């Protein structure tokens, strides 16, 4: 985090020394883009806060399915619908594994958590377009399913 500020400060300084007008113009472009997207980010934050509140209980309840494939499906659906920062998601994943939830179910959950974003739609569609966003998330969902099954094979949870 501090690194980001140092890098930004150094680059702004170098840029400023190289060309003052270009630098001012560049920063203006950045500010403009930020102002344009800010309301979408705010909407995203509200959605995350609300959805996270309702899904936390569901995650613990539905991921420990007897049936591995149903577990993967539940994990992937919940993972797609939610978003969490890593410092919450991984300790939660650790707890799930300790409770005996299969690795492939946890993999399906954390992978979709990161890769598939239903909640990030308001921001992603501004940058990728609606169709681009839907296609990317669809393909990501399939990839996450393959990763979950591969994890099942590596951990001996799926017998080929």
């Amino acid at each position: 985090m501090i690194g980001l500020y140092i890098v930004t400060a150094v680059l702004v300084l170098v840029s400023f020394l190289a060309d003052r007008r270009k630098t001012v113009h560049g920063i203006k472009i950045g500010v403009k883009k930020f102002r344009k997207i800010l309301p979408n980010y705010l909407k995203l934050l509200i959605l995350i806060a609300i959805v996270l509140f309702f899904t936390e209980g569901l995650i613990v309840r539905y991921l420990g399915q007897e049936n591995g494939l149903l577990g993967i499906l539940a994990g992937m659906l919940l993972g797609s619908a939610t978003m969490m920062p890593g410092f919450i998601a991984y300790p939660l994943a650790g707890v799930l594994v300790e409770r005996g939830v299969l690795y492939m179910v946890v993999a399906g959950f954390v992978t979709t958590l990161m890769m598939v974003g239903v909640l990030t739609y308001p921001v992603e569609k501004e940058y990728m377009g609606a169709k681009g966003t839907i296609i990317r998330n669809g393909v990501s969902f399939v990839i996450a399913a393959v990763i979950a099954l591969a994890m099942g094979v590596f951990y001996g949870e799926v017998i080929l």
Partner: protein
Amino acid sequence: MKISPRTRNYIYFGLFMAFIAVSFLLKYEPGVAMGNNFYLFAKDMVLILPPAFILIGLFDVWAKREVIEKHFGETAGARGFVWSILLAATTVGGTFVAFPVANALYHKGARYSMIMTYITAASLVMIPMSIMEAAILGPKFTAVRILVSLPLVVIGSIFIEKLLLRMKYRIPEVQEVQK
């Protein structure tokens, strides 16, 4: 009176903040929990987004189209995917930052498969996240996840590119602030 989507989002935000404030005053549990969730994400975004957007602005004025085309464009080849993944691994802030960066790259001449690889990899191989994952779930878990996913990400991105090109798709330009 017509309300623009922009203004509407600000109104939602105002209402939500009012709800959280009242919840904290009345100790209304669900509202307090949502407020805490909101704070978790908002804190990071407030810190990361402003410098990230300044860097995107500087990228816009300095990055030469030919250079981006050479490394991320039609002629980039396999090495372009390596660049995209390396750029993704070092992007701070995950997809929140990756979306605008990918958009900027695209408008400087990067091809679809590269920006799709970049966005997807940015959510999968962030270095600090992966270290934490390995510590909690074991290095084997992280290794399998990354090694299985990267080839799939590249293949998936090529597939998405084919699809988008067939649709003659154009990614929206994000520039002017709508009034």
